[in-house]
């Protein structure tokens, strides 16, 4: 397993956001975490990337324990996190945002190659490379946030609500890109409120309810699960 979360618990000001959550992410493919608002999906990602500390449990990445490390060490280990709400740097240009994603890398030549790859994947970003990120649309900002994460050359990509607030046609485009990234060899953890989308993309899924792991299984199986259909797919 590439990533193992073992009995991880997180609290904010003594309010428990995630209790004894365990999950595993293999070396390839897409794992999704679905659940309602406040179920602990974002907390799980924030715990993995070191933005919040666990009060119990462990997280291992590539055989190495990473919980308790500061975020920059976890990025260096190979985890890139596209946070909820995209969080691009508003007063930086598109290109500056992308290059900031490669902050820890020293392989100058390859950074240029990867920049061209990102531009090839997102032609819109290339057209706007000199534009300030704050002037772009939501979909473009999402693409920029994903491109920025790819510039870190990650071994694991965390995506938090990439479809949030986007028009259906843009969501389709983002979905296609997520599939491409996973097919290209970078495993993805996808957090989504849009369970239909998430289950259609993912290989394996975890369902969180009020901070607890409620269900897990192959995405195709969960898609047929009675409880999931009623609670998350509205069928």
């Amino acid at each position: 397993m590439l990533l193992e979360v073992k009995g991880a618990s997180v609290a904010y000001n003594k309010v428990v956001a995630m209790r004894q959550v365990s999950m595993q992410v293999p070396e390839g493919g897409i794992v999704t975490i679905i659940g309602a608002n406040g179920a602990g999906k974002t907390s799980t990602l924030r715990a993995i990337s070191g933005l919040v500390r666990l009060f119990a449990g462990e997280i291992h990445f590539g055989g190495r324990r990473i919980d308790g490390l500061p975020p920059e060490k976890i990025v260096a280990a190979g985890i890139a996190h596209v946070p909820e709400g995209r969080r691009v740097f508003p007063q930086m240009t598109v290109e500056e945002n992308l290059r900031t994603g490669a902050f820890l890398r020293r392989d100058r030549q390859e950074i240029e190659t990867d920049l061209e790859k990102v531009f090839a994947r997102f032609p819109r970003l290339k057209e706007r490379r000199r534009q300030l990120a704050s002037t772009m649309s939501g979909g473009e900002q999402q693409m920029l946030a994903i491109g920025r994460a790819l510039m870190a050359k990650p071994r694991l990509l965390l995506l938090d609500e990439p479809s949030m607030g986007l028009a259906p046609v843009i969501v389709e485009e983002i979905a296609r890109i997520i599939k491409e990234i996973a097919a290209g060899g970078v495993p993805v953890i996808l957090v989504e409120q849009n369970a239909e989308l998430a289950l259609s993309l993912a290989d394996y899924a975890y369902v969180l309810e009020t901070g607890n792991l409620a269900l897990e299984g192959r995405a195709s199986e969960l898609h047929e699960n009675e409880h999931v259909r009623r609670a998350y797919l509205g069928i």
Partner: protein
Amino acid sequence: MLELLAQTALNATYAASYIALVAVGLVLIFGVMGVINFAHGELFMLGAYAVVALYADLQLNFMMAVMVGLAFVGCVGLLMERALFRPLRDNPLGGLVASIGFLLILQALVVMGFGVRMEHIPPVTQEVIAFSDRVRFPLSRLYVVVAAVVLLTALWLFLKRTRFGWALRASAQDPEAAALQGISINQTARIAMFIGAGLAGVAGALTAPLVSVNPLMGHSVIVTAFIVIIVGGIGSLEGAVVAAVAYAFVHTIVTTFYDGVIADIVGLSLMLLVLIVKPHGLFGTAERA
């Protein structure tokens, strides 16, 4: 009349230079760390005392004293980051209160070391550039202007062209997103604090021979710097420079034609006016999350 205006413009340019150095440092620290450094005026004062100790007392070369002043006050900034602002990172108000406490400590230390009297610093140069009989610019003031332009240009290039400059800008715009790119918050905080404090120190050191140096001199500087960053838009470095120039011109002109107290009132009124018309300041975008 024309000559008087020309002379006033020269004086204002000089004032704008050191105010800009102080204000830009204050903005940088606020932008990256989210903390208002109330002790910033005292860092200016420490820079001036570095010149008192090294240049006036130990008779070292003036430029050398200024350089040491920059490095020394920068290191005081590092100390503040480690001892005050890092433990209080999640508590911006705590950082502000701690910096007020720290400024009192700095004042007391300087009083213990140097006494409360006004320091006399021998002039660096007596030379004056005379444009005409009545338009004259002392060379020592020109030094301050040149140093400010050089330092601010260097800072600009650092922020735009270097890896750590980018890291600083990214942290200022979104600290958490910056952390997710592998940028260490502790590291950017250290850099911001060293540069911000160093700029205040160098401003104090450069102007020391031209102003009255005493342990309480930081007070008027911090008031001016606050007016400037509020007018410029808190968080905007460009705004701080533009507002420093604007404020210095208004203040110097009013001082020349009326008097200094009126000039202070006019300065504060302008700040209020800007706040009413543009609450985020002239160059401000939005408040920091």
